[in-house]
């Protein structure tokens, strides 16, 4: 209690000012992200993106925001009104509260928590509550499906994400994010743990639901998922939270793996460090947008199998090799080698599958499906597992 009473009025006001600055800065960053995404995707697809509002369409996100604020805030007649209106906040608050412990520089952080990464993990899990509640309260089948899908997806991909962060914690020996960054002053962790970076990026993109993994928004299947019934300002809050989360994953990738504001060639002044950090972050953001512009959306079974059959074993292997390296005190380049070796395993299998002629692959899948069916004969209908001969591919 002494610590609580020791908090003075000036401290509280400083924190309030910092939070306000954080919210303002994040809103501006979200506007910039929207602009960058639309321009980048446009150019990738041979279009030009927004050009009309302001120079180079720079004011387009502002115009969109104004439009959203003035739209009618409709709700379905059968919606559970209290939960329906609370769900956007339940998504936005965890994604904003996380930023309290994110450092932007050595000393630019609202609260430099000793267990910062633990705090990050704890609160990043919470947004699932808002998604499921939004889906359930909308009284719409698409929203419910989207909410349940988000639950399945976020639970699956949290494990690899947390495991990847765990290895960073093991190697850095601290959960304090500033300490993690200061450990990377000579070598960024991406050079030591390429596997960890790959796992973190894949799981992180899935966690925020960006496009190759946006199963629970999936316009073509669940027409927007949990957000389908929202409009106007509440939809804008969802949108804001989505982009803040995307930026958060980029920031965490820059902090945990790319060395944050540190620079291998000596110390940088605070502002230059911030600029470097933001540069790395926006690079990761553009990479995420690049993936969005390239890959089509996964099917839900593909999503689940990637999460459980690929990322999860790889993340355990990642922990194992890091543990060996730390326990025996091997030099850090051995971890790089082992990491690359483990990363080569899925790459090898993928290449082997893709090298097979299409006919053989189809035959393999067909045989696998037949074997699967043979294991589970349907007793009620009297249907028995049949042996189906697969036609030989004609030369």
């Amino acid at each position, binding site marked *: 209690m002494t610590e609580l009473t020791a908090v003075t009025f000036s401290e509280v006001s400083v924190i309030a000012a910092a939070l306000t600055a954080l919210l303002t800065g994040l809103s501006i960053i979200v506007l910039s992200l929207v602009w960058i995404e639309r321009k*980048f995707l*446009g*150019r*990738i*697809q*041979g*279009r*030009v993106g927004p*050009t009309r509002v302001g120079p180079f369409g720079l004011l387009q996100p502002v115009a969109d925001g104004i439009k959203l604020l003035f739209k009618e805030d409709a709700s379905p007649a059968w919606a559970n009104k209290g939960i329906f209106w609370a769900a956007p906040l339940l998504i936005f608050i965890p994604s904003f509260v996380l930023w309290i412990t994110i450092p932007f520089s050595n000393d630019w952080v609202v609260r430099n928590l000793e267990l910062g990464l633990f705090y990050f993990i704890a609160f990043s899990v919470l947004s699932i509550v808002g998604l499921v509640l939004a889906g359930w309260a909308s009284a719409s089948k698409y929203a419910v499906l989207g909410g349940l899908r988000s639950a399945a997806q976020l639970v699956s991909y949290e494990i690899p994400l947390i495991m990847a962060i765990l290895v960073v914690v093991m190697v850095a020996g601290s959960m304090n994010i500033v300490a993690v960054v200061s450990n990377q002053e000579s070598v960024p962790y991406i050079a030591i743990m390429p596997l960890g970076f790959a796992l973190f990026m894949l799981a992180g993109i899935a966690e925020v639901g960006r496009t190759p993994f946006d199963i629970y928004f999936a316009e073509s299947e669940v027409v927007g998922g949990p957000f389908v019934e929202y409009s106007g300002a509440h939809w804008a809050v969802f949108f804001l939270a989505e982009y803040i989360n995307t930026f958060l994953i980029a920031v965490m990738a820059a902090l945990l793996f790319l060395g944050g504001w540190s620079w291998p060639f000596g110390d940088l002044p605070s502002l230059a460090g911030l600029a470097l950090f933001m540069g790395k972050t926006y690079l990761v953001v553009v990479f995420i947008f*690049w*993936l969005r*512009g*390239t*890959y089509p959306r996964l099917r839900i079974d593909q999503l689940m199998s990637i999460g459980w059959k690929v990322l999860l074993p790889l993340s355990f292997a990642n922990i194992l090799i890091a543990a060996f390296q730390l326990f025996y005190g091997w030099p850090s380049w051995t971890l790089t080698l082992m990491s690359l070796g483990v990363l080569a395993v*899925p*790459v090898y299998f*993928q*290449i082997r599958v*893709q090298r097979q002629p299409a006919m053989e692959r189809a035959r393999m899948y067909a045989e696998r499906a037949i074997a699967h069916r043979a294991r589970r004969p349907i007793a009620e209908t009297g249907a028995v597992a049949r042996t189906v001969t697969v036609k030989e591919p004609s030369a």
Partner: protein
Amino acid sequence: MIAGVKGLLITIQWLFRKPVTAHYPEQHLPVQKRYMGFPGLLWDDTADEPFCTGCMVCVRECPTQCMTAVMHDNPKAKEGTSHRRKIIETFEINLNRCILCGICEDVCALDAIEMTHEHELASFARNGARADLQDLLVLGRQFQAAMPWQAKNPEKNVAGIALAKKDAPASTPASDTATPSPKEESSA
């Protein structure tokens, strides 16, 4: 995996290409030469008058009945500077009803009507796209200026040939003498 990396490289290549988007109201892309837009009336430069004699073939054949035409005696024929004894007086096409089928162009024996490149017809009035004789002639002249246009039936049309045979007026085409039957255009 290889295919995935290939895909990434392909998409990033497009970042360095010129976008294909044309900003429409400021930038007009040229249409193809074979483009069939709205019909226009062509201009006979040798006789300095329209080719059209108002023979009404296109008016009768038009599936949407969007045209009307009225002919009168050609004053130039009396002066002897043209072989056309009849010439178009008024010609109106309701371009909103035109379906761009090109039948009028096909049936015209005198090269008088042709599908031009005109295709931008937005207007604020309900009857804003009615083209009278002057509009149609402007469309035709623009088309002739934009294209290396040549008459398909020069023996019937080029005034110089006909003027050379002024002593033998029977050689003028029979369709020139078709009886005019001006038809009131049914309002849309």
